[in-house]
């Protein structure tokens, strides 16, 4: 489990150094005032895509020798409704779940409240899942 802790730590450092944890930067993105975040997401996707292509092409296995397996995502209407709802929250808090964790770790203690509220939101979704359109 230590390896995942270290991977997370590296990711958290990048989030802060890239100013991805900044509410201001997210506002800039949604006002089309800066290319910064589009550049980050775009280049991250390209690097991720190339990595997966390389892994598949050369049949690279995990460090324990397993075949790499990426489960397919199935479409349901939740991706539309939930996506829109998350987008609203993203621009309000200026953070997605990763940056929220990095902000809290970076000493903005009040973000603990936002995180708790996010856990509550997740729970409420689970509670009413059957009644929601999917």
């Amino acid at each position: 489990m230590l390896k995942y802790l270290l991977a997370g730590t590296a990711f958290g450092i990048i989030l802060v150094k890239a100013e991805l944890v900044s509410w201001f930067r997210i506002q800039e993105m949604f006002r089309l005032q800066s290319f910064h975040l589009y550049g980050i997401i775009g280049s991250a996707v390209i690097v991720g895509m190339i990595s997966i292509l390389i892994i598949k092409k050369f049949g690279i296995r995990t460090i324990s020798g397993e075949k790499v397996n990426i489960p397919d995502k199935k479409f349901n209407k939740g991706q539309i409704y939930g996506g829109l709802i998350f987008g609203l929250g993203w621009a309000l808090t200026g953070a997605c779940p990763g940056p929220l964790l990095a902000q809290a770790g970076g000493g903005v203690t009040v973000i603990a409240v936002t995180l708790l509220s996010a856990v509550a939101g997740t729970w409420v979704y689970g509670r009413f899942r059957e009644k929601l359109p999917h």
Partner: protein
Amino acid sequence: MEQIISLIRQPWPWYVAGPLIGLTVPVLLLLGNKSFGISSSLRHVCAACMPAKIPFFSYDWKKEKWNLFFALGILLGGFIAMTFLRESTAVTVHPNLVKELAGYGIHDYSSLVPPDLFSWPSLLSVRGLIMMVGGGFLVGFGTRYAGGCTSGHSIMGLSSLQWPSLVATCCFMAGGFIMANLILPTILSL
């Protein structure tokens, strides 16, 4: 050496940070066949702390423990970066945004998160309550409803050519544009 340290302490440009974030995808796949995604950790916390016999939370969350360690790592990474790797925490933003925010009494750019909005005293104001508690709720509810967040859908999903993730990402952006441009001004003037 000093030059390198000074470079690290400055904010990183997108073409450095973006590819590094993209590398998280193969790193997690090769470390143990894990699909990059952060919002699932919120679900595991629910399953661990308050399953309440809800089917959605009745699964063996311990099998997904890696995700919680990854989340804990992000917390730790935030601490390390803020404590040791920053020259200053001030953010430089577009002058139009500065002008707009000044109209709502937001002047403090000294931190990554505007202290005028995100602070304990602000939690007692209507504006702060909506942004921190309401915003957090929408993030938690929406990501689970959508089956992932920016990491799971926009990075991992798009990287592996999953079209439902493209739909989700477009909706993330649409929701963000609506909030930032149409609804947020009203909330900020509260």
